């Protein structure tokens, strides 16, 4: 053992009590490291340290021959610890851990020293860089004696999935999972499935009708025997961990069943009215309603918030098919994984924002699309205020790309500063639709920038320009102003400082002002608490990594699909949902999940049961065993942040792989006298 009296754990994973036999492998990285760091000198000096039995360099340590060499040395010299000094561990730690595994050594008896990104690429002086590299490797040599073999966590996964939300993303995810033979439960809060896609008349970039497309998707999903859909159903609570989630849901009765034949009579008889969410408030609907004729399921539902249970609908249909006394039902759904596909809401402009709610001529782009829909509330006609529409102004970025101090703040004091991505193309698509039907209408498009980023989206910009849409550009710090037109030409006048004409103030008449509103996440605060979801600065759900793990949440086994993650068009939602489904399917198909072992562990003798760790754990992974009066870590829930280990007043919790003695050994080695001289 080392002469410094280190209390390290020694052994190769198969038994303790052996001497440390450390192999140190230093990489040249083809000159990336060795041009600055004198790797030969470092290897020689490290070779002299106690416990080190092998220390050498290689041109490319990550290459197959070099890995084979490491494997060989482990076997030949009976190494029980391996240090690789090379690039950042984010790149190749896994590579070398696998090398250890192949050589029959526990993969966690490994230290990766970063001498490229954090030494050779940042330190100018070769001498200083060489010394720093040596210091860091020395620290790893000291630390590695304290490592113990660890095992990956393996958790069995139940062969089923729960999808929350039955919009496009949820349906696609459910369809794809069901096709893999997985059992899928889909939970939808509203009585109808299909989400917001049905509210769009046409969709870009193909110009297809939205509802037939959606119908096709719905038919695929609902006729799959693996799929069970729960409408009017809310998630109440969820317990469990990846592989074994138990989710309690409550289904509000529909009030209507398949025996109902005279749907029209029932709806006509209903005396209660409320605003139609489907038409964004352009029309009213009854308490017993169908949002649109092609909705799914093809039967009405009763909105219990509006219904007074007067019974007139029941009389009108002869007492069959409607039940006003049905009670809510609760069931528990068992699933191995969960996909959140909770979608978005269009941004609702504040009172007075660009004259919204003040002037009846101000509408949102969503409302315009409802009007343009041939099956919509106006039968495809644009109407507002009774007068014929001659001039339409469209203002982009209403509730998007706002600046603090310029735009009206939201109730939370913040402004919506992110780009909502879809509204530029949607607005241009609408402009073009209007121009095609009524070429005589003047359209003024007021934008900060036109962001038609997707395939085929730019064509809408091009065609809108060709069709004669007038583009005016404003600065987000100098927003257009909407006023009553006192000359009486049009009801409204929009004043804009136009950047395209060197900042001239231009007045645009508007019979109709359309706000191309942004996108906000659907309110799912309860689910966020339940599943410990990470939230981005824009309040949308936050993936683990935008490039490497784009549809996963930090909580293992919970995936995100579609516009709950950020503003997306249907194309992107579908792609995201398919990705989430394939990730989930892979997890289920594998039958188990493997997780890193760097989790918290309680030393039962030291634990006083003070509950401090319970409070700081971001994942509720620690509970208190009341009978024994100690903290217990759920190994499957723990994500290994180590916050509890830093907090425990009795030092009773350690984080495996980052234990106090391991980190302190590293610290001591970095700061010891010899190392100091190395600087």
């Amino acid at each position: 053992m080392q002469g410094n009296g280190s209390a390290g754990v020694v052994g190769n994973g198969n038994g303790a009590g052996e001497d440390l036999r450390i192999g140190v492998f230093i990489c040249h990285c083809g000159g990336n490291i060795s041009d600055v760091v004198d790797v030969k000198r470092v290897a020689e000096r490290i070779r002299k340290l106690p416990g080190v039995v092998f220390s050498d360099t290689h041109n490319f340590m990550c290459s197959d021959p070099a890995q084979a060499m490491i494997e060989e040395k482990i076997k030949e010299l009976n190494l029980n610890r391996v240090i690789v000094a090379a690039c950042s561990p984010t790149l190749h730690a896994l590579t070398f851990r696998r090398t250890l595994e192949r050589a029959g050594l526990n993969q966690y008896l490994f230290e990766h020293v970063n001498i490229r990104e954090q030494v050779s690429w940042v330190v100018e002086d070769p001498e200083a860089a060489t010394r720093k590299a040596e210091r860091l490797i020395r620290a790893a040599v000291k630390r590695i004696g304290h490592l113990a073999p660890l095992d990956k966590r393996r958790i069995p996964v139940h062969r089923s999935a729960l999808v929350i939300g039955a919009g496009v993303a949820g349906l696609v995810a459910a369809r794809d999972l069901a096709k893999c033979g997985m059992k899928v439960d889909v939970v939808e809060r509203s009585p109808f499935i299909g989400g917001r896609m049905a509210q769009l008349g046409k969709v870009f970039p193909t110009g297809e009708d939205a509802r037939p497309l959606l119908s096709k998707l719905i038919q695929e999903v609902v006729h799959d025997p693996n799929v069970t859909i729960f409408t009017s159903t809310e998630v109440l609570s969820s317990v469990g961990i990846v592989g074994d989630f138990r989710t309690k849901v409550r289904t509000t009765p529909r009030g209507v069943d398949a025996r109902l034949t005279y749907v029209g009579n029932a709806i006509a008889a209903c005396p209660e009215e409320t605003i139609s969410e489907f038409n964004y408030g352009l029309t009213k609907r009854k308490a017993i309603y169908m949002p649109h004729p092609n909705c799914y399921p093809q039967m009405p539902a009763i909105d219990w918030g509006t219904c007074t249970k007067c019974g007139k609908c029941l009389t009108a249909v002869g007492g069959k098919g409607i039940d006003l006394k049905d009670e809510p039902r609760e069931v528990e759904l068992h699933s191995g994984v969960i996909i959140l596909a909770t979608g978005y809401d269009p941004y609702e402009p504040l009172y007075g924002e660009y004259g919204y709610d003040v002037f009846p001529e101000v509408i949102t782009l969503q409302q315009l699309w409802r009007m343009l829909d041939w099956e919509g509330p106006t039968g495809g006609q644009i109407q507002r205020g009774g007068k014929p529409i001659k001039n339409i102004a469209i203002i982009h970025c209403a509730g998007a790309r706002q600046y603090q101090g310029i735009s009206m703040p939201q109730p939370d004091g913040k402004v919506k500063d992110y780009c909502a991505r879809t509204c530029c193309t949607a607005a241009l698509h609408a402009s073009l639709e209007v121009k095609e039907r009524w070429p005589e209408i003047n359209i003024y498009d007021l934008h900060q920038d036109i962001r038609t980023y997707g395939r085929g989206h730019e064509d809408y910009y091009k065609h809108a320009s060709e069709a004669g849409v007038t583009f005016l550009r404003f600065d987000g710090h100098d927003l257009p102003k909407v006023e009553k037109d006192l000359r009486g030409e049009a009801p409204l006048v929009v004043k804009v400082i136009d950047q395209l004409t060197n900042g001239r103030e231009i007045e645009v008449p508007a019979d109709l002002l359309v706000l191309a509103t942004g996108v906000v996440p659907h309110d799912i605060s309860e689910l966020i608490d339940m599943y410990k979801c990470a939230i981005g600065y824009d309040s949308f759900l936050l993936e683990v990594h935008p490039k490497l793990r784009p549809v996963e949440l930090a909580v293992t086994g919970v995936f995100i699909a579609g516009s709950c993650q950020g503003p997306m068009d249907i194309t992107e939602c579908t792609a995201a949902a398919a990705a989430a489904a394939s990730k989930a399917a892979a997890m289920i198909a594998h039958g188990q999940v493997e997780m890193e072992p760097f989790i918290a562990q309680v030393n039962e003798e030291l634990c006083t049961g003070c509950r401090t760790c319970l409070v700081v754990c971001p994942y509720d992974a620690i509970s208190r065993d009341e009978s024994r009066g100690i903290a217990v870590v759920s190994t499957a829930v723990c994500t290994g942040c180590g916050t509890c280990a830093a907090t425990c007043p009795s030092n009773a919790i350690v984080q495996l792989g980052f234990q106090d003695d391991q980190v302190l050994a590293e610290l001591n080695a970095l700061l010891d006298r010899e190392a100091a001289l190395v600087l």
Partner: protein
Amino acid sequence: MADQVMTADVSTRASATFEPRIIGFLCYWCSYTGADMAGTARMKYPPNIDIVRLMCSGRIDPELVATAFAKGADGVLVCGCHIGDCHYMVGNHKTMVRIPLLQRVLREMGIEPQRFRLEWVSAAEGARFQKIVREMTEQVRQLGPLNWPGLMRSRGVGHGMDLKPWGEV
């Protein structure tokens, strides 16, 4: 100073060639990757900082910081994800409270604020990491060697503190 060895040590280290020893405790997800980013962009900074990688800045036990100073560090830099970006959702919220409190305690114990910094560095902020390390190294260089154990003993406190600043584990 009571301790002869310490005095000698300080005098040699306080010479014109004084190179401060700085320990950086970095969370793996944002700040460590941010430091890597500085490397990828070949942004040069002094070699005085040695980075200790932890999974989350919430893991940074005050004891680790105190030990670093007690063992001879002239400065300690703690870096974590920006608030709201924590890989573990709220791990850095603990850091945000814990470290400033520790800064106040250590200031009372003779450690100047420049020697013990808390900074948020995202995975993309290589330039920010470079700037912080350059600035901090220069400031600590100006302040001179810390020799915290010696300082504590000169105040007649520090009993129980590891009196061998360069000692082994």
